[in-house]
């Protein structure tokens, strides 16, 4: 289903050419709706839903290709990664992801694609250009999180039942280190300087900070929220600002995002968002952070500099993944 091109964006761009002061360009935010079998497309400035695109079954992890032209979608129940053309908003193909792909990530050069196959204890590595499967790496039980180092040399995969973060060499596909973390690790995220990996443990209710070089855990951070019983604090997604100063952790059914000081590794505050918050994504300028609230079917918008939740936007059914365009 196509929609007219966003006229506001064109007008804004035209204005930008004629005046010295340019209005903020709107980014495009993509959200996968796990039960709705769709992708919601949002304008990051007006917060309008631009379109809801029907896609494959049970879409979860999504990511934009490096050139920004395609959105890769893990259609878990279709056992494939779909490729969506961003301009036409149509599915144009798919990738041989292996069964039940949950989450995916990209080598910083843009290819290959790393896909966690939740049902089969595998990480599948696919060349984005040729669509060839380059490798299938055996990891622990129920892999989900896939973090890629900024230098492209290491991929970290979390296995939810084995409770490990596996460090994998991207050239040899060897598992060089297997770090035992808290129960049910969901997500792995490298800092922009490549020095640390943040790994969330959903059932243990903690997030581990791992030194990317020594592969040792520097700190395990727990959370305490007045009025929320500890078992409902279940960290899932995590994002770090480019300068490393602030870390945002989605806490699941605690309905809050924790804000951690990236230097002291202390929790600063908790921001109340929607129900069962799982994933997060910054706009490229890091002015805004979008969170997916799976049980309230909406997305929260956080004003990052002011640490305030400024808006909730209803999207599709059971929003899961979120990613933002680079322009």
């Amino acid at each position: 289903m196509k929609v007219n091109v966003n006229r506001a964006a064109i007008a804004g761009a035209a204005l930008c050419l004629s005046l010295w002061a340019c209005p903020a360009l709107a980014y495009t935010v993509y959200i996968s709706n796990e039960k709705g079998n769709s992708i919601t497309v949002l304008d990051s400035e007006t917060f309008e839903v631009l379109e809801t695109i029907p896609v494959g079954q049970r879409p979860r992890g999504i990511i934009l290709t490096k050139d920004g032209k395609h959105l890769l979608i893990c259609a878990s129940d279709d056992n494939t990664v779909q490729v969506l053309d961003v301009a036409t908003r149509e599915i144009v193909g798919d990738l041989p992801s292996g069964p039940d792909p949950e989450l995916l990530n990209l080598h910083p050069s843009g290819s290959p694609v790393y896909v966690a196959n939740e049902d089969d204890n595998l990480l599948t590595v696919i060349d984005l250009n040729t669509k060839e499967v380059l490798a299938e790496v055996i990891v622990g039980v129920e892999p989900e999180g896939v973090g890629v180092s900024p230098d492209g040399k290491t991929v970290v995969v979390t296995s939810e039942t084995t409770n490990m973060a596996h460090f994998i060499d991207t050239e040899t596909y060897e598992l060089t280190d297997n770090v035992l973390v808290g129960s049910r690790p969901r997500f792995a995220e490298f800092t922009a300087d490549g020095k640390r990996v943040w790994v969330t443990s959903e059932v243990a209710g903690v997030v581990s900070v791992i030194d990317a070089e020594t592969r040792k855990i520097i700190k395990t951070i727990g959370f305490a929220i007045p009025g929320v019983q500890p078992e409902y604090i279940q960290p899932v997604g995590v994002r770090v600002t480019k300068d490393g100063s602030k870390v945002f952790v989605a806490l699941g059914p605690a309905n809050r995002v924790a804000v951690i000081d990236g230097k002291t590794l202390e929790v600063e505050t908790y921001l109340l968002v929607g129900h069962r918050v799982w994933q997060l994504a910054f706009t490229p300028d890091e002015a805004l952070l979008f969170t997916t609230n799976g049980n309230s079917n909406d997305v929260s918008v956080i004003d990052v500099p002011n640490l305030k939740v400024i808006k909730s936007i209803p999207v599709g059914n059971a929003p899961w993944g979120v990613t933002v365009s680079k322009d």
Partner: protein
Amino acid sequence: MFWALLLLLFVSLPGMAQTEGQGGQATPPSGEAMVVPLGYLKQEVRRLIPLSRLNVEPEDIGLAGAELALKDNNTTGLFTKQHFSLEVERVPIDGDALAALEKLVESGHRFILVDAPAEVLLRLADSAKGKDVLLFNIRATDVSLRQEDCRANVLHTAPDRAMLADALAQYLVWKKWPRWFVVKGAFPEDRAYLDALHRAAARFGGMIVEEREYAETPGARRSDTGQLQVQRQMPAFTQGAPSYDVLLVADEREVFGPYLPYRTWDPRPVAGTAGLQAMSWHPAHEQWGATQMQNRFQRFAKRFMLPLDYQAWLAVRAVGEAASRTNPADFAAMNTFIRSEDLELAAFKGQKVTFRKWDGQLRQPIIVAGPDLPVSMSPQEGFLHERTAVDTLGIDAPESKCKFQ
């Protein structure tokens, strides 16, 4: 929070190349893998044929769950250089369970799953007293095993009747169906379940408007005639009760219970041991990542996963978790870890599960289900607890009569 630091071991294994193989195959790494042997003791019992063909217990019930957990443990074991094994002893009806246990213990098995009635479990526990042996009760729902008959060397992954009744009662009260017409069987197990229902009613605001006993003795279980009789008999039997919302049936031996749904005099839902039931697991449960568990189990066992399979899976996984975070050769360390708050077993129910310190019962949310689908999961919203809502199910610490021997 500080305990989280305790449970983190750094494990570093140089250069294990693992590519291009099928997932799930686990062979022990060469040489140094530490073997962690688990035991499984099943006491066969005379079981009445269930009234529905759909509910016949598979031969490998429980065992399949244990074996799948073994596979999961052994996948982790590839990275921690541990290998888990399972030795099974099936004790025939009227066989010698104590001898079977002794055989397991003598051959070095310290962590043993037990699928047996309460009396047998107690004899096994007493015979193992003072030894480095930990038994997991995966079957018996007797509340007495968690109360006056509790044992220091027994942990329970099976929920007891109090937890099951509480889970159901909370849902019915949440649903605003608090008036219950109870139909009870004449056997001791039915009495035990009835006691649990009474307790649950008092705790959560249920109102038992009448109790009626079904006194017929079971005859031939299934025959190809007789349905017309049942069709007439059940309405007549359930006629004339005071106004009620739900018919609760306490019929653990399945003499009449499954005949009640859709045949009650008044159009009312049936719950309890038939109809809407409380259970630790349902084969169609898919919340909180359970789909993956169901997929793995069905691929492995070629059938649906049943509560006993889940209860066995939990026990084997508890040992696996402990082994990955302490030294499996150190029984005391393993025993302590399994019973501690650090266990944090992920059980596909939206929160971690741990064993209660006061009676060794695994605290867990309980599914309330119809035949095809789960309907809800207790604890229900609104039932408060000072520490953790899941302890509103079953016997809580201040009420516990358990003094570990």
